[in-house]
């Protein structure tokens, strides 16, 4: 069982790095689209602000959970 726990823990670390990479790419492309093809700079900025504000606690929760593994 300890081996399974180590494997699970390593898998979650891998998932965290993969999620960070995908999230960064997705956010970059999405923000680019909002600011390039959006109709209002104010709306695009507000959208990006809300998006980052909501995602940040989730990353903190994931990082905190990993530290307890």
């Amino acid at each position, binding site marked *: 069982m300890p081996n399974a726990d180590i494997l*699970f823990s390593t898998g*979650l670390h891998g*998932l*965290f790095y993969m*999620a960070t990479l995908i*999230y960064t790419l*997705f*956010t970059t*492309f*999405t923000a680019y*689209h*909002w*600011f*390039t*093809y*959006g*109709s*209002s*700079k104010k*709306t*695009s900025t507000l*959208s990006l602000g809300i*998006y980052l504000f*909501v*995602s940040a606690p*989730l*990353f903190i*929760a*994931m990082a*905190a*959970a*990993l530290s*307890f*593994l």
Partner: protein
Amino acid sequence: MIFEKIQLEANEEILSVIRRHWFYVFKQCVFIALLVFLPLLGLLSFLVFVPQSNSVGVLASYAPHIVFLYAFWLLINVMLLASIWTDYYLDIWCITNRRIIKIDQVSLFNRETGSFRLERMQDVNVEINGILATFLDYGTIHVQTASADLEEFKATYLPRPQEIKSQILKAADDRMEPKSL
């Protein structure tokens, strides 16, 4: 921004910019809300169906794993919401005094832009189908054009479709008027 990219002709004015009805976004958000609660439902059923003495202990020993996976799941849902917003925010119908421009953000790297001149417009049809569409006042607009490559322009979930139809017809009439004089 988009209006700098749409190159308007001389004396061309934007009459209105139309996005889909809010219900289109709301419908998808409800689905996301259900997805958010799905893992919690799984945990709840685990607590209910596994004997009490075992289940709480098992869950407590895996608390960091559960928190991590749930936060990961929520992050996926936040990204889905961002995609829904992108689709809503970047899909627009722009009615000018000369043409109708349709911009459709199909996916992140798939964007379709089309336009047709009001002179080439042949017919405008409005379709309001269903109880919700009737009460919330949204519908589909079909615009028949004489264009060889694009015969019909179609947009779904447009708010106040009758008003949009009137606006298009008025703009087309105004466009035709100087020629008939």
